């Protein structure tokens, strides 16, 4: 097994003249008598992106983000400081600033040691160097050509390619050092199609914690181009969506954004500790039909939402949130787990060294059921079949959530009918899964483009689900 810790030390500590003694000293400054939890988070990220439009490679950009964030927690109080400069002076200044929330005293001496190793879920190789630049450019051109050749009604094609390499080194309050080397690649394609004066858009994309050749496997990137065009062309024919409450069949994969919004956020430990979630205090209660089992799994190899260890050094795991309809557990970081008297679940995540960690989702999905998806559609007399979505949002206190369909069809007499324009679907998180009456045997995970925002911090996530039949969802059309 590769020693990620040694790589992280060489990249982050040595070039800035830092040693383990400096980390010990900073941890000691953080660990004032009243401090229950402290950590130091070093980050070194590189990102390269390319964008094609009008058939030419218009933009390329490279960025480096590096810095260190230090935290001292006492009870429910947190002190936090960070620096873009990774050196001894800034490290000690930030440590003093972060621990200033508690009364000054004699800091404990903390001896630094390597944490128990966790098997990495992805390669430590650098995605930025995983293909020649010429090949990266060639991917953009091939995707553009594939989209344009699908249909003459395609008037605009925009393709973007992003590769990121992030190295983190975490010193926990007990002196345990752990590191993670995180690759992330993504390709997005969006198209505009125009016909008889009507214009529509379509989009697709995918990615993984992997190297750029992932996008070439089985011509995956060309499939994204075809999907984007398909969506735009479908929408050119779309009629207004219906308005009102009706039966909705949700397709497999990305429509799992339903789970992310309707239940995932409401089960994050911070909201439940504070009693601000509509799910607070409901462990053991029925919150879904018995067909529904929902998990959050950060330990899936190579997925966009996966992490070998979370941003507090805790190994990720598969956490059952809902089992056969019964609420089982919350997603926890260290602070909230400690205050709630439970174990952390490896869901402590932060956007960067300049942000505080909090409980976040990783890959959230519903397990497969028994029913053939074709039977699910055939079972509906009149309703909506939604196969693709844009984003969603939730009010965790009232439980109300929305998610917006970008490709949807009417179902009439058990058959898929005309495409309808995008519409927002709205429901109540603690209720909606109780109205799931059929669960398909076709579990799919999304293609790897999800971004979750919470309190101003964005992190990559995954979702997934099998085909679902949901009764009485409100569809926000105009017809």
């Amino acid at each position, binding site marked *: 097994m590769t020693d990620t810790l040694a790589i992280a030390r060489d990249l982050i500590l040595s070039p800035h003249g830092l040693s383990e003694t400096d980390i010990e000293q900073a941890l000691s400054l953080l660990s004032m008598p009243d401090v229950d939890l402290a950590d130091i988070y070093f980050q070194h990220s590189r990102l390269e992106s390319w964008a094609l439009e009008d058939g030419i490679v218009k933009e390329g950009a490279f960025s480096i983000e590096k810095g260190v964030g230090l935290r001292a927690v006492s009870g429910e*109080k947190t002190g936090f400081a960070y620096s873009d400069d990774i050196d001894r002076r800034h490290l000690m200044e930030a440590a003093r600033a972060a621990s200033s929330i508690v009364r000054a005293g004699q800091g404990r001496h903390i001896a630094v040691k390597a944490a128990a190793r966790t098997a990495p879920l992805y390669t430590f190789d650098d995605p930025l160097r995983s293909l020649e630049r010429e090949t990266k450019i060639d991917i953009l051109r091939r995707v553009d050509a594939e989209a344009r050749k699908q249909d003459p009604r395609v008037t605009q094609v925009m393709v973007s390619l992003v590769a990121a390499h992030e190295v983190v080194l975490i010193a926990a309050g007990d002196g345990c050092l752990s590191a993670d080397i995180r690759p992330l690649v993504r390709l997005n394609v969006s198209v505009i199609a125009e016909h008889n004066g009507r214009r529509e858009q379509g989009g697709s994309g995918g990615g993984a914690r992997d190297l750029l050749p992932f996008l070439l496997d089985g011509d995956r990137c060309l499939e994204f181009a075809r999907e984007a065009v398909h969506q735009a062309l479908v929408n050119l024919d779309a009629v207004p969506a219906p*308005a*009102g409450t009706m039966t909705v069949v949700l397709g497999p994969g990305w429509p799992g954004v339903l789970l992310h919004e309707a239940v995932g956020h409401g089960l994050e430990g911070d909201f439940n500790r504070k009693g601000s979630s509509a799910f607070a205090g409901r462990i053991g209660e029925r919150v879904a039909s018995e067909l529904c089992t929902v998990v959050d799994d950060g330990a899936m190899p190579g997925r966009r939402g996966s992490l070998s260890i979370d941003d507090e050094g805790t190994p990720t795991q598969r956490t059952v949130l809902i089992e056969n309809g019964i609420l089982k557990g919350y997603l926890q970081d260290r602070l909230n787990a400690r205050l709630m008297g439970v174990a952390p679940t490896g869901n402590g995540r932060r956007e960067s060294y300049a942000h505080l960690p909090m409980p976040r989702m990783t890959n959230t999905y519903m397990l497969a059921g028994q029913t053939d998806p074709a039977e699910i559609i055939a079972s509906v007399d009149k309703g909506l079949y939604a196969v693709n979505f844009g984003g969603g949002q939730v009010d965790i206190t009232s439980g109300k959530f929305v998610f917006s369909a970008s490709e949807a069809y009417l179902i009439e007499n058990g058959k898929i009918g005309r495409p309808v324009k995008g519409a927002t679907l709205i429901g109540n998180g603690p209720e909606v899964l109780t109205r799931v009456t059929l669960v398909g045997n076709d579990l799919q995970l999304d293609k790897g483009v999800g971004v979750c925002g919470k309190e101003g911090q964005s992190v990559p996530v995954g979702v997934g689900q099998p085909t679902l039949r949901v009764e009485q969802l409100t569809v926000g*059309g105009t017809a």
Partner: protein
Amino acid sequence: MKTAPDSYENKVLDPNMLEQQAFIQQVVEDLLKEARRLGADAAEAAASQDAGLSVNVRLGELETVEYTRDNNLGITVYFGKRKGSANTSDLSPQAIRETVGAACDIARYTTDDPYSGLADAGLMAVDPPDLDLYHPWPIDPAAAAEMAMRCEEAGRGYDARIHNSEGASLNTVAGIHVYGNSQGFIGGYPSSRHSLSCALIGRDDSGMQRDYWYGTARDPSRLTPAEEIGVTAAQRTLARLGARRLPTQSAPVIFRADVAPSLLRTFVGAIRGGALYRRASFLLDMLDRQIFPSFVRIHENPLLRGGLSSSPFDNEGVATSAKNLVSDGILRSYVLDSYSARKLGMQTTANAGGVHNLAIESGERGLSDLVREMDRGLVVTEMMGQGVNRVTGDFSRGAAGFWVEGGEIAYPVEEITIAGNLRDIFMGLSAVGNDTDIPGSVRTGSWLIDQMTIAGD
């Protein structure tokens, strides 16, 4: 070269602001010099340095103290008509060399684009005015926590149904931003921004609701009083308790002033150069045509003194000035940077980076007058989700608010959607209120729209 001034003790009020500005200006000059040395035909660079303090309290106790400190520098180089960009958070001389090198390297692989390049030299803001944007706040964490606690306490004490809180938070940030390009333009200015916010949770037999309120200003002395913010947050939360659903129907809709800025931003998104040259806008080819009723005037004023979104020049150094986007209901100007302007065969409108201090001319009546005029319909006080299609103008979003009967607010509503097409929504604007007292950089009163589809039960 000096190192950046930094110390956690004096970060908020930096007595050496001029020294810091000189340092950031030097960083930009070094970036441009390095680009020239590497053979770039043209280059533009921006750098910024901000420092601040963020303090959260919850249920009367200190929750977090965050010292923020952000550096950023970015460079775009042009080799002929090919371009490359790079940025970093590291302002050291070594990082400057590496970053410029990376941008130049990228430019070897991009394609000639006849429309790329800097904005015209003649448009630069040669003598940018001082817009009074810098009022740092030397507040320490204890005083910040005390103020946030007063805010939260006023809200929690307002009514017994406010049983919980997500806390109150005070944020203050001040810093320097400098932009320069290889045509000899370099300009920069310091600015500050402070905010105080509070989010409260209320409960009754019907369930829990949460709402918030905030104030924000360049100058801390102009911040809304802490107690007022707390009480407003409490009132907004209480007003939502007991919310019901509505039957599916068509009805008039009022977008209350605090949600109306979202419609104005969507409008601006549709007249941005990038959306227009891609033909990805529902307002394509609408310049000089009627898109709102004739009483409507929408304008921006980048040079507003002390304005939250004021800026003497845009992200390309082009001098900004006040202008109408819409007057007499007619679209008078797009929102362009130099690239999209060249693509469209037009001239930049000094909007690289966006619009500044957007406003719609307010009417003479208040919200309660609009409610009376509407008689029966929906007042929207919250919108959820991203259901806006910029290409077609199709709009479908989650909503919460109040149902109006007989010209009076009858009860709160939630778990509904509102839908329509933005072209119809804009033309269906029948009045703008004078209730413009909302926080933020967009100035608008409430909007009364003649009809939209509401989906519910």
